[in-house]
């Protein structure tokens, strides 16, 4: 049992991160952004509708606003900051993953608020399904709302990653 202000530890992006002196009911999104200096996950709706706060929790893509942080002890959490494993592009000071690079080159980013959640959702999709159909891509990102792009360039970015990964094998 954990009580208010009692420290608990979360495993985030491979590191043990202590959470100190917090209200114990805080969402994982709040703890990531406000207590652990991981502002990549964005907070927009705080009710699971927009997907901007998507993280991987024990391998599942979930909305971090709907996870009570203190219940995520003994779980593995990966945020957008931790998604560099597949293909690292760029120098070490500013590394981005192949999915992030494709979003940049295909112009899939406009205001950028939905982008981190989409990046996590796309990584999760391609990890489990390396050659998804168009409808599978649409379904996989149906929980990530983008108000700017109309999604066309997002689909182009996903397809670019699929093609690049196929060629590199």
């Amino acid at each position, binding site marked *: *049992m*954990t*009580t*208010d202000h009692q420290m608990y530890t979360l495993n985030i992006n491979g590191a043990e991160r202590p959470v100190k002196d917090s*209200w*114990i*009911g805080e*969402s994982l999104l709040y703890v990531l952004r406000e207590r652990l200096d991981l502002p990549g996950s964005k907070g927009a709706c*705080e*009710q*699971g*509708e927009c*997907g901007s706060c*998507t993280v991987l929790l024990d391998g*599942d*893509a*979930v*909305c971090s*606003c*709907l*996870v*009570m942080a*203190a*219940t995520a*002890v*003994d*779980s593995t959490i990966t945020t957008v900051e931790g998604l560099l494993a597949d293909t690292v592009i760029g120098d070490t000071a500013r590394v981005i993953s192949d999915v992030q690079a494709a979003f940049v080159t295909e112009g899939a980013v406009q205001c950028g608020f939905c982008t981190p959640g989409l990046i996590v*959702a796309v990584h999760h999709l391609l990890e489990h399904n390396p050659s998804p159909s168009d409808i599978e891509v649409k*379904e*996989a990102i*149906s*929980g*990530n*709302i983008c108000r700017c792009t109309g999604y066309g360039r997002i689909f182009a970015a996903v397809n670019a990653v699929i093609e690049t990964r196929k060629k590199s094998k």
Partner: protein
Amino acid sequence: MTVTVATNLADALAALRATPDARLLQGGTDTMVEINFNHFKPEHIVALRKVQELRNFSIQEEKGLIFIGSGVPYQTLENDPFLTLLPALAQASRTVGSPQIRAAGSLGGNLGTCSPAGDGLPVLSALDATVHLQSVDASRDVLIHDFMVGVKKNARKPDEIITGVTVPILRGFQGYSKVGVRNAMVISVASACLAVDTSRSQIRLALGAVGPTIIRCRESEQWLATQVDIANSNFSNEIAKEFGRRAALEARPIDDHRSTAEYRKHAISVLAERLLLKANS
């Protein structure tokens, strides 16, 4: 405030006995919204996501039953073996929220919250599911119709955990349809589950989001049984239309922020009619 992360059912039950006013947290998709918007400030939380016993399911083929643990996420329920054995449940599961919500949400959460718009609930009603409840020293089974008692009210006692449901495997068509404002990420404005049970010559219809809790359309079901031979299910357009009209009469919707009572009644008449015609093929 305290948070207990239970890793097995015995620990979860003991924690709940110690703090019977605790909120049980499964996927968090309902409770965390309440907390984020300051509508609810919990004193005690017993988190169930790590309780493996609640995430199991088992097929009892000789009895024609499936046990589904209360924590099995919708992303499991939308695929096989559920897609084949309980197609209406798989269809309903697939309409829940988004992939992110379906990775977290479960039937246990649907039953615990007991919102009339819960997508799993019309299916459990149409299939005559049994809900299993357990406390530290007792367990009991409650028929789904007795479990759901009102708007966000159920028959669970404060020291009980919903461990799962047992759902009969039926022979015959079954389907789930819902109306919402768009295709993805939508809470039902009106929903309906139709299940044909050829071995008992029954057709069952349950409605969601059009009453204080899920509504079984017993009168429409009985009327239909007097009109046609259900075992040979061949329903004319006229029969289907009348079935829809009667189902809408059994709905008891209200006007709220999602829709109007009038539209919901119309939606039910269309959903019930279409589901019955689908049963022909």
